[in-house]
């Protein structure tokens, strides 16, 4: 099984690269025959990726969330998987390359640096696995929301500046759809973050050795992101926020999420880090 995992580890960035390439080609050339082919490529990539994740989990007897590079491969999968579901639901097929490129980058870094290491017993908990997976899906949701937010702003500028000949203007869907895609992804992200928080609260008392702190940077960061998206979604729902303001809200939420991840992972100490000393 180890050999298969190694092969898949090499194969996955290539598959994401091919999927990205097909989406890019379709974006540039607008070839009718690629409309369904690109979807098949992405499906196959995701199918192989989920097999890889399952094999990895079975081989090591824990969910693949025990180090940054395992988390990266899960992020790569969840971003493209969320996009795939969104594409199936909305039939908006012209934006895939902007999302898949993120999966490609995450998977490439993961494949290059992933390695076996000793795993603390605490990380083998299924509840923790659910907590982390839902948090990753949540962050994937807000990442996709931000990508659509950026695309909205780009399209908005093209329209304002009469750049009707650009590929962005010609290939992207209309502003209202981009706004909806950004909004729906934000809702998915928000719901999954909420699930992550709830599972975390349930799991916490089961690990008395964990030094819980309300001033934990990851806790504060996630709380802040969760609150921003909560306020944004509520404001959009009640009609207080519309159009450009909705996507700017989403982008701000995403930037804070990135910032909080950097601070909590690399700058300050968190009870969220589990390493064997």
């Amino acid at each position, binding site marked *: 099984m180890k050999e298969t995992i190694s092969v898949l580890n090499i194969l996955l960035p290539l598959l994401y690269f091919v999927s990205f390439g097909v989406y890019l080609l379709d974006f540039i050339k607008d070839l009718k025959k690629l409309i369904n082919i690109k979807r098949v490529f992405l499906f196959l990539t995701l199918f192989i990726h989920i097999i890889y994740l399952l094999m990895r989990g079975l081989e090591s007897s824990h969910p693949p969330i025990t180090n940054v590079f395992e988390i990266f491969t899960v992020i790569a999968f969840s971003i493209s998987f969320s996009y795939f579901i969104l594409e199936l639901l909305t039939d908006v097929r012209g934006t895939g390359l902007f999302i898949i490129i993120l999966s490609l980058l995450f998977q490439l870094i993961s494949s290059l640096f992933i390695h076996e290491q000793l795993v603390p017993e605490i990380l083998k908990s299924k509840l923790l696995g659910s907590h982390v997976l839902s948090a990753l899906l949540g962050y994937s949701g807000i990442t996709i929301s931000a990508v659509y937010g950026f695309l909205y702003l780009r399209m908005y500028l093209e329209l304002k500046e009469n750049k*009707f000949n650009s590929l962005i203007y010609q290939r992207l869907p209309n502003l209202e*759809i981009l706004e909806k895609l950004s909004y729906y992804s934000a809702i998915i992200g928000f719901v999954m973050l909420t699930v992550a928080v709830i599972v975390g609260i349930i799991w916490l008392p089961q690990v008395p050795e964990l030094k819980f702190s309300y001033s934990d940077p990851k806790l504060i960061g996630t709380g802040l992101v969760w609150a921003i998206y909560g306020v944004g979604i509520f404001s959009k729902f009640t009609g207080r926020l519309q159009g450009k303001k909705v996507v700017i809200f989403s982008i701000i939420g995403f930037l804070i999420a990135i910032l909080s991840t950097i601070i909590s992972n690399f700058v300050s100490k968190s009870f969220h880090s589990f390493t064997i000393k």
Partner: protein
Amino acid sequence: MNIIGISVNHNTAPVDLREALHLQQEEISDLLKKLHQELLNEAFIISTCNRTEIFGIPKDQNLTPVDMQNFLTKAKPVPGIADEHFSKYFSCSAVNHIFRVAAGIDSLFVGDNQIFGQLKESFQLAENAGSTGLLMKRLFDAATVVGKRSKTETTISDGAITVSYAAVQLIEKIFSSLNNKSALVIGLGETGEIAAKHLKDKNIGKLTLTNRTYEKSEKLAELLHASILPFSGFKDCLSEFDIIISATSSPELIITADDLKLMTKKRKSASTILMDIAIPRDISAEAKKYDSIFYHDIDSLNIIVEQNLKKRKDEIPKVHKIIKEELVNFFSWLNSLDIAPTIKTLRETFENIRSEEVKSQINRFNEADREKVEILTKRIINKILHHPTSELRKVANLGIDSPEAVSKIAIVRELFGLMNNNTNKEN
């Protein structure tokens, strides 16, 4: 067998001459009957604001397009019209021209969709007048194929090429669905009216019209099931609309900076599209400064029109390829209508069937009988084909351009599948 034609169109004659020569339906029907009686075995006429054209199969091989030209100018005298205003077509160039018209590449606006419908109507008129036969029907079918293929296999008709339609297409790049949106059209001149019709075609949720002349609003509102606002009071309701298209001929601004300020205040951050398709402009350019307003004037819409026209022109080589393919198909069929090749193909077809059957059954006969079987089956085939062959030869004496000859040859070819034989060989 020859097809000839004449055309007065936007490339050959100025608009006043084209207008003067334009034929009404009754005129076309009368003219077709006369043409059919005097000059042409088969004929059809197309007459639109941009072209008047006659095509047909001459009764007399010596008939020239100049004779048709004289016939037309005698039936519809137009002062100032001269030989230089006519394009003349023979045989392949005539068919090529009809195909170009059907594909929309001979139109004033390349890729024009209307012409295809007009061509269909013209053919229907010719059919009703009894001036069409097998050849014209086949020609029309081929032109239909060219028109349809050009539309589906190329993007020759894609994209807006009028300012009004460009405005509506631009709106669709901002709003995903118009059926939950409200629109106001200010000014119901030709441009405003067309814009209102386009919005209706796109299923706009609520359409409101306003015009200085109330009667004009009333008439169009009835046609489009729209509501009307009095011109004196529409400004009070600006904030109620997601889309505002203004196309008046007013020398002053209709929507000022103050109106915009008030409107955006009332609409909060809801997106509003303002399309100013008037010259001089109706809406203050201050609109550009508002984040929630998408303001476009005639200059920006013209950018779209020019881009689309360029894209359509870039598609012309693809249409030429389609026309070439269909010309080959059409003339392969036309050439197959000659007597000698028809008799030859008919005999070959029967001989093939005979020899294949004999080959498959020959082992059932002893050596001595095999030769007899060959002779017997050949004799049967010869007897079967004797009458059709002599009938076809008689038809040849009528002249191969006669409708009777064309019709009989076509029937023989169709009944015995000889058309397919030819095509297969060519392929």
